């Protein structure tokens, strides 16, 4: 696959606010029709990165292409081909659903605007609610409206900034089904999220912390690269066990899950040595594959050690 075949192909993207580097030398390649998950703790630079891609912020460094256009010079043209959904609902609460869609459609100068708005209302099941004010919609409906508005000009790339924050599981699932349908139709999606179930529905992932890209690839690749060993423990009086093993050499994470706990560490040998005395009849230990969340938390801790100032 040559460089120009990527929907997004940027290198060395950097953004500084004053002396603080918010995005540090990030490379990213996203294939067309791919749902690319962008993960990382709050304030890690995800939003800043998205804003640079769609021309809302001027990068301090980096080069590359977005939809075959120079992402630093052609932001005016890129804007016309990108749909950007902001983290906070950013449509007009005092306009109705239809008026919002119509306004956006006019700004993009969509040919056959009325039909496009109508189609958009139909596809998102908002035909009856068309004259409802956007401000009176529930979180799930606001999110649907925002997605519809982002799609109205049929963009080639969708940038979604935590689109499902505060949305119930059913609405989230519907939203993801829709994303997969769109991606199957060739739309490229770059999405940021904090939900692990959503991360695992992405074709590929990137993990960013403190402005640095720490891991990328498919879910399996990221988990493998995390190099985390995890043990699952069943048994009696787990809280007492937790207290005993927490802080032992090699034990990096102890996480309680209802009737089990997960014990993880990067150094498998050290971890095994530490937990060996507790492998009694009272508890049942099984080695399992590390979870994505465990890997990310481990990555974040490592990053903290490496980049802490």
């Amino acid at each position, binding site marked *: 696959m040559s460089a120009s075949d990527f929907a997004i192909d940027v290198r060395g993207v950097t953004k500084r606010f004053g002396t603080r580097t918010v995005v540090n030398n990030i490379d990213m390649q996203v294939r067309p029709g791919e749902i690319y998950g962008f993960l990382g703790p709050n304030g890690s630079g995800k939003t800043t990165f998205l804003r640079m891609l769609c021309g809302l912020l001027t990068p301090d460094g980096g080069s590359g292409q977005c939809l075959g256009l120079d992402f630093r010079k052609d932001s005016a043209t890129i804007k016309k081909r990108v749909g950007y959904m902001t983290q906070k609902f*950013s449509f007009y609460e005092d306009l109705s659903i239809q008026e919002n869609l119509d306004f956006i459609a006019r*700004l993009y100068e969509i040919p056959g605007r009325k039909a496009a708005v109508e189609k958009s209302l139909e596809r998102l099941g908002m035909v009856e609610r068309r004259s409802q004010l956007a401000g009176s919609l529930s979180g799930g409906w606001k999110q649907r409206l925002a997605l519809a508005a982002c799609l109205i000009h049929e963009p080639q790339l969708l940038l979604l900034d935590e689109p499902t924050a505060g949305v119930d599981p059913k609405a989230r699932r519907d939203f993801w089904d829709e994303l997969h349908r769109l991606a199957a139709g060739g739309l490229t999606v770059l999405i940021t999220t904090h939900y692990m179930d959503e991360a695992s529905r992405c074709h590929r992932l990137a993990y960013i912390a403190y402005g640095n890209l720490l891991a990328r690839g498919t879910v399996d690749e990221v988990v493998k690269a995390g190099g985390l060993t995890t043990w699952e423990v069943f048994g009696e009086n787990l809280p007492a066990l937790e207290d005993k093993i927490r802080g032992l050499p090699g034990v990096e994470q102890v996480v309680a899950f209802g009737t089990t706990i997960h014990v993880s560490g990067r150094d498998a040998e050290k971890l095994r040595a530490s937990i060996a005395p507790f492998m009694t009849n009272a508890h049942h230990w099984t080695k399992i594959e590390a979870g994505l969340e465990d890997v990310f938390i481990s990555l974040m801790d490592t990053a903290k050690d490496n980049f802490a100032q």
Partner: protein
Amino acid sequence: MACVHSSFVIRHFFAKGVRMKRYAFNVRRFWAVVIKEFIQMRRDRMTFAMMIGIPLIQLTLFGYAINSNPKHLPTAVYAADNSQFSRTIVWALRNSSYFDITREARSEDEIKTMLAEGKVQFAVTVPVDFSRKLLRGEKPDLLLEADATDPAAVGFAMSAINQLALTVVNRDLTGPLAKLRAGPAPFTITTHQHYNPENISQYNIVPGLMAVILTMTMVMFTGLAITRERESGTMENLLSTPVHPGEVIMGKIVPYIMVGYIQVLLILVAAKFLFSVPIVGSVPLLLVLALLFIVAHLAVGITFSTLAQNQRQAMQMGMFFFLPNILLSGYMFPFRGMPGWAQDIGECLPLTHFLRIVRGILLKGNGLTECAPDLWPIALFLVVMLTIGIKRYRQTLD
């Protein structure tokens, strides 16, 4: 006409801009913003209330409540000399429109108390030997005491009584006493007033109100229009679309031009039918010239909103701008009465010039020629404000 002309101005600015060369002003996108603003305006009850409410409130306050030539001021009389002359003076005071004799005092102390307590604005004392001294030609003193806490309130009345006492007393000095008629007073007050000989404040204030109300509301409307987008997060969305700064700015200006005209018409109707202000000049001319003034202030609002971080700051800037306007423009105080430096500041404000235009057209019947000297300062102001506004408008969130 207005928007075609303005869009030309905008395009002209962008032609000089560096980043802006790539795409020109797009009328359809501009129109999208206009429609959106109209819908939002219709839904925003506060804006609607401001549109109609501010002119109404100001008309009531300035038109009916505030009077720079107050009359019927409460007055006390202490006639220690109960003579023909003192009775005549009291009678004359009663008949003048400035003084209402509300109290009759029986001692000097009583007069002092009434003044101190603010029960009366004026007190007239006719001294014990007033008529005797008058008849002897000794020029007795007629004491007029005024509560001059508010100098504006007593100024006209003070000059009125000087005239009054002289003419009234002279009338009583007939026959052999005619020789006692006072000669020319040590000071003379000549009042010779054009355009408003009866000193009716409303004639001056109501046309001025038109200019003042536009200054206040136009700056506020656009000042809030862009900061509101920033505050509610919709600016981020707007910036991610292909919309152009000029389209947004013009799209936000045009709907409020209409609001400005609603206010102008409202005040003109009130001036004519409520306050019977004589409308001597051409109303169509006034409406045409008002456009320049309205757009100039909408541009001020746009500039403020690019400087302010939020709506509160934009509001404060509006107030900050409004203050020198109301004080130094000649609306509240006579322009020629101000010191040179204050007049210089006043000359920079569009309100100063528009006040002259409005009063000139309505009261004096001025035409375009007479208005021209006050037109170009407003035009210059508009160009400067639009340039700052467009230069300051950020196309990114940086």
